């Protein structure tokens, strides 16, 4: 393993510092209490500080003697489409109902692959919607309406 300056290390460290920092700032707003009777803010403050310090250590190490991590290009199309598909599901399941929401989510996800053709994608998502309906609604009797109130033909 080669050791040199490493961007991923710095990025990872940055994320830890950021999240740790946000929690520290948030925890300052809660009652800290005393060690005897800790308030809700005590533990998150401590752990948040630990995360931030470890993040700083990772950044420093990344600048001096980082890990070289083999990396491939980010599949932006997949990132965008899959996030979109998941968020769509959460946002519309209440209003559109099970079948339409699942179908759109499945289609968006299927298109995340760069190698899929539209016709194949449509067929796969139709198949998955039927399968999901059979498994979850018919088989496991989840109480989600098949067609929601917001869905109009």
């Amino acid at each position, binding site marked *: 393993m080669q050791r040199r300056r490493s961007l*991923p290390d710095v990025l*990872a460290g940055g994320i830890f510092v950021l999240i740790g920092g946000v*929690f520290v700032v948030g925890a300052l707003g*809660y009652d800290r209490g005393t060690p005897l009777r800790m308030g*809700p803010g005590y533990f998150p403050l401590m752990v948040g500080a*630990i995360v931030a310090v470890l993040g700083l250590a990772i950044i420093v*190490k990344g600048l001096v003697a980082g890990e070289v991590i083999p990396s491939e290009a980010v599949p932006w199309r997949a990132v965008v489409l899959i996030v979109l598909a998941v968020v769509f599901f959460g946002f519309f399941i209440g209003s559109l109902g099970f079948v339409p929401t699942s179908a759109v989510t499945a289609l968006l996800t299927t298109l995340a692959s760069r190698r899929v053709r539209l016709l194949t994608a449509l067929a796969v998502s139709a198949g998955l919607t039927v399968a*999901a309906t059979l498994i979850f609604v018919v088989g496991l009797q989840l109480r*989600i309406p098949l067609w929601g109130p917001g869905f109009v033909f």
Partner: protein
Amino acid sequence: MDLFDNLVLGFSTALLVQNVLYCFVGVLLGTAVGVLPGIGPTATVAMLLPITFNFEPVTALIMLAGIYYGAQYGGSTTAILINLPGESSAAVTALDGHEMARQGRAGPALAAAAIGSFIAGTVATVVLAVAAPPLAAVALKFGPADYFALVLFGLIVSIALARGSALKALAMIALGILLGTVGQDIYTGTPRFVLGQRELYGGIDFVSVAVGMFGIAEILRNLENERDRPSVLDRVTSLWPTREDRRRIVGPIARGTGLGAALGVLPGGGHVLASFTSYAVEKRISKRRSEFGHGAIEGVAGPESANNAAAQTSFIPLLTLGLPAHPVMALMVGAFIVHGITPGPNVITDEPALVWGLIASMWIGNVLLVLLNLPLIGIWVRMLRIPYQVLFPMIVLFAVIGTYSLGSNEYDVYAIAFFGILGYVLIKCGCEPAPLLLGFVLGPLLEENLRRALIISRGDATVFLTRPISATLLALTVAALAIAAFPAIRKRREVVFAEED
């Protein structure tokens, strides 16, 4: 003898029709996800967890456990046939197993893996049955300070075992603990970090974290580089190993079982460590060292036995202490809690039918697995031809539906997307997701016991050092941290893992 009565109770529970059925479903699914590269047992269990909420608790746990140890079996099939480990612990099986397959000896390699796994699984379940009750009895003497030290010890040991940078693993654990503090404070009820959203009062759902980090992030990793799967060796002939083979696998299976049973108890992927260690041991003591890497059957039988033994004994900390040793176990803690059972030393006395039913089901599961894996090998080979373009949308869709059905809470679904992206970025930066999930599940336990211990000791922090159990565990924690941090020892650790490359 109690053990006998317990086992009778266990088998009378495990042999109920629905339990055998769901044990079968569990090992079948486990084998499937073990065989298929790109989907692991953690994501599968997370996805199916919501479904099991309608079951009896024991049925639910039997099925989830079946998925976990079934995946250890299935992972070897892919490793041997197409040199792609379906599960991380099968990476070492690929070394000699695939080489055997290329020499036309795929049958004996698969048989050695299955026989080794069966023997190891059966023996390790005995270890589990014998070791669990006394350990639970000891654990009942634990006070909050001891529990705090134990949880901390478990978390730190899991870094010593994880691959990659120890510093990053430590940070991932701490981040997991931090994310676990979201939601209402246990003592005062104050909502913390909820951004004013009522839906977050109950905290972040750990199913969302698991599905995001292990499901979505893994899919994004796989979509970075869409390649055709390496072609499958299509014919598997003459499964039965020759007499020479049978003679050669006896020792490795026995040693692998022992190693696996011992190492499986360790938190954080003891089964991966077990298979690597077993391979290293077999290579060292073999008279035919030069054959290793070129199709030595010992290199298949040993590690496969080890990882399967470890898969069974990793239930020991879960059933006796309520501590998960693996992300899948962390999900099972969730399954316990949903069914109103607090995992811990009391479970074994309060819910004997559940614990012994689960243990007994593992024997049944192991028998089912041999039947599934040897005669039906052709079906699994055919399953490898399912294109990933169909597989990954199925994972995403089923994951969001399953997660949503938990509490009809759309925030749980948004959390999947959030943790999918966070997990993807962190994995790309060389951080492993497993420590984060362990930290997330154990974090609340850590906080609760820390605060309770200090209330009992009236704010005297030395309580952690004056209680012998707690002091011993903390000393061990420091030692584990030292092992993870010191370069000289780390180097040895890297040597063990380097075999994989």
